[in-house]
């Protein structure tokens, strides 16, 4: 009864303009009838005879007015063109959310809290006001939000945070007010409403204060969001804000992350091995595929792939199968699809034979060292076909899903990177500019080992990279680091590089036959 009363009230609030117009029309028609009835029949005839023309003139005038209004004002800058999406119409259930089980579990709890709001209030608990979904792109944050809306069965309003940003200060805040006004009314009528704000970092980054007025609009929008979520209001409605962002948590404004606003933080990471298996299994059901496909192998190869990546791989493999006139998707198509997703399109015939040979030695060097020395990664593929700006590539992936890397793994990475340089030098006595990327990567890793991770031999321990760190305002300045310490750290870095170089040279010379064989294979196959 109370809900019905509220709905009637909401209906009246929603439709008062229509009702006022309708009443005015009826009154005017009544007045017109009365007026006409008092006229003599000739004037009545005359009025009725000219009525169609008058209506036409009024209609033309109205059309001109509307056209001008739409052209000049476009319905006002602060217009909020967001319609309601009913939860049940989104039709994304929790069963459809695959590969992110932990986040799913946390979200399910949220759904239960939304459903049992009354029970929670009876106990004295506070209603959840905000859920912040964080994690890399393509991991299913939006999908999970849709699932929450479907399962909780309450209205869902979806917006992108960029829709609030405008060059005019106050427009974003105005839109925010309108959004929450709408959400509160829906919550009143339906018992709750979910507001989903995608890419929240567009308005949620730490507020800055500038004398020049920079960032005022973003600040105003964020302030409004903060007030709407936990401001002083007469009535607390069941409006739950779900924010999604790829940005790291420490870049977001602290006021927004405090309890009472985004109470829950759901971290949605890339799926683990099991998750990837589930995802491959799910997406492969949508295409005709080889039943003998080893899903576990695919999942192991797809380390650090997001659900969106996996969906893209399967979609791409179906396209490749169609292009190759195959009826089903097999391992080859999926493998090609992975290459394509990771490395881009092949560019055959791009290099001269001599260049190709040099690239083959370079990549063979990488491959042999990776295979022989790396404790964590396996060689997956070596290619001398140019793709995406690379003349060749040695693709590798972790043997198992490790979350940490030790000194050996770092050293192996450096050695693998330097192996291309060493192979070129052994074969030609000189090297090409193809080593620049390898040097950069290996140097960075050696630097990190010494400067940040305490993996040097000098005994210096600590993160020396904080000196002069501009991001951290509490960091000591670069001048506070003694020159002698810098020299020691840099010497240590170079020592690691030289040590690795020496070891790689020795090993490649010793196993040069393998390198030659590999080069021959690469050139023959033009792999």
């Amino acid at each position: 009864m109370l809900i019905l009363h509220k709905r009637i009230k909401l209906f009246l609030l929603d439709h008062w303009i229509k009702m006022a117009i309708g009443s005015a029309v009826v009154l005017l028609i009544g007045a017109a009838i009365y007026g006409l009835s008092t006229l003599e029949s000739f004037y009545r005839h005359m009025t009725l005879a000219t009525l169609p023309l008058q209506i036409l003139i009024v209609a033309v005038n109205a059309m001109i007015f509307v056209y001008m209004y739409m052209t000049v004002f476009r319905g006002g800058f602060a217009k909020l063109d967001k319609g309601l999406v009913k939860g049940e119409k989104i039709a994304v259930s929790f069963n459809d959310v695959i590969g992110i089980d932990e986040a799913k579990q946390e979200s399910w709890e949220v759904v239960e809290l939304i459903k049992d709001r009354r029970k929670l209030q009876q106990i004295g608990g506070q209603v959840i006001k905000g859920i912040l979904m964080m994690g890399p792109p393509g991991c299913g944050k939006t999908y999970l939000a849709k699932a929450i809306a479907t399962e909780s069965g309450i209205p869902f309003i979806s917006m992108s945070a960029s829709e609030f940003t405008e060059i005019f200060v106050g427009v974003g805040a105005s839109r925010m007010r309108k959004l929450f006004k709408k959400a509160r009314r829906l919550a009143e009528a339906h018992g709750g409403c979910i507001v989903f704000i995608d890419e929240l970092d567009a308005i949620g980054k730490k507020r800055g204060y500038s004398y020049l007025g920079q960032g005022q609009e973003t600040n105003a929008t964020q302030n409004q969001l903060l007030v709407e979520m936990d401001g002083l209001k007469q009535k607390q409605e069941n409006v739950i804000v779900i924010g999604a962002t790829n940005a790291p948590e420490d870049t977001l404004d602290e006021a927004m992350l405090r309890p009472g606003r985004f109470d829950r933080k759901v971290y949605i990471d890339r799926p683990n091995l099991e998750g990837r298996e589930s995802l491959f299994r799910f997406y492969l059901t949508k295409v005709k595929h080889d039943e003998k496909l080893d899903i576990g192998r695919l999942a192991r190869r797809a380390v650090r792939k997001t659900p969106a990546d996996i969906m893209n791989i399967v979609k791409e493999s179906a396209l490749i199968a169609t292009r190759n006139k195959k009826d089903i998707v097999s391992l080859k198509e999926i493998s090609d699809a992975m290459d394509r997703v990771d490395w881009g399109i092949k560019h055959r015939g791009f290099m001269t034979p001599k260049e190709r040979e040099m690239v083959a030695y370079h990549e063979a060097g990488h491959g042999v060292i990776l295979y022989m020395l790396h404790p964590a990664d396996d060689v997956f593929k070596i290619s001398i076909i140019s793709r995406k700006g690379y003349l060749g590539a040695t693709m590798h992936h972790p043997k198992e899903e490790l979350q940490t890397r030790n000194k050996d793994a770092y050293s192996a990475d450096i050695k693998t990177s330097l192996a291309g340089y060493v192979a070129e030098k052994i074969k030609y006595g000189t090297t090409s500019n193809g080593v620049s990327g390898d040097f950069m990567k290996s140097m960075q890793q050696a630097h990190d080992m010494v400067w940040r991770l305490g993996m040097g031999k000098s005994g210096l321990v600590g993160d020396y990279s904080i000196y002069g760190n501009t991001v951290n305002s509490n960091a000591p300045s670069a001048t506070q680091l003694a020159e002698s310490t810098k020299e020691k750290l840099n010497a240590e870095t170079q020592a690691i590089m030289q040590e690795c170089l020496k070891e790689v040279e020795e090993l490649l010379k010793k196993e040069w036959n393998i390198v030659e064989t590999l080069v021959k294979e690469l050139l023959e196959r033009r792999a």
Partner: protein
Amino acid sequence: MILNRAILLLVFCIAFASCTPTYPKERIVESVQKLCEKEYNVDVEVVIEGSTMGVRIPLEGLFDTETLQIKPEAFDKITGVMLSASRVALSSDRSIDFYTVITYDPKVPGAEVVMTRYIFDLRRFFLGDISRGEFAKRMVFDVRFNPQAIIDTWLGDFTLKDQSFTEFICEQTSRRIQDEFRENKDLAGKFKVIFCKGSLDGKTLKFVVDISREGLPVSELIHGKAWHGEILEFCMQKICYVAYIYSFKDFDEIEVFNKFDNKSLIISKDEISKWRNRRIRID
């Protein structure tokens, strides 16, 4: 949807309501009398003859004794009565084509002011089809001495002749010609109009005029030819114009005869449009 239907229903109601005449034919005389009495405090006599409605108004002090013009206050009452007659004629189911308002001064027997209007002109004016100036020109206005009126006044009788469309056309044309010679700035004071009357003689629409040039020596008046043709041609233009605006085609030719010099101009119906479009000349 419901609102649309309601609006449609209301429009139908209005349309049906508008079909009922305000002044039914049975009460047309009383209606005019009541309106005149109520709105303008004037007692009138009303007679309907054929398709002509006649309204007679006795107005003491109709004419200014010094200027012999109609007094303004008398003219206001006549206008009011004409409006009442118009309203009744327009909103009645009785087919009325003309109405004539005859005003007389009981103290000046036989002198009458006669104003006649064609109802179709009224309709067109109200619908904005003709201008106010043209509407004024379409009224037949005459100040005349009518001996029959003296007899009627004695007998307390009001007799009315049914106005025919041809007569109306002819009277209006005569009136227009006389007014034009009097009011047109190029013609005023140069011509003397003694007489102008038109009628349908068989299939000839004949207009007899007596118009001469003023201020010229007698020899020039008699022998000068240039202005003779101008008068005839001017009159012919007016006749053709009136016939055209009323789509009057019930004739074979038009003749204009000037009694002053016994000259006439005749033009056949087929030649009128060519002449009006200056494709032919007439001598």
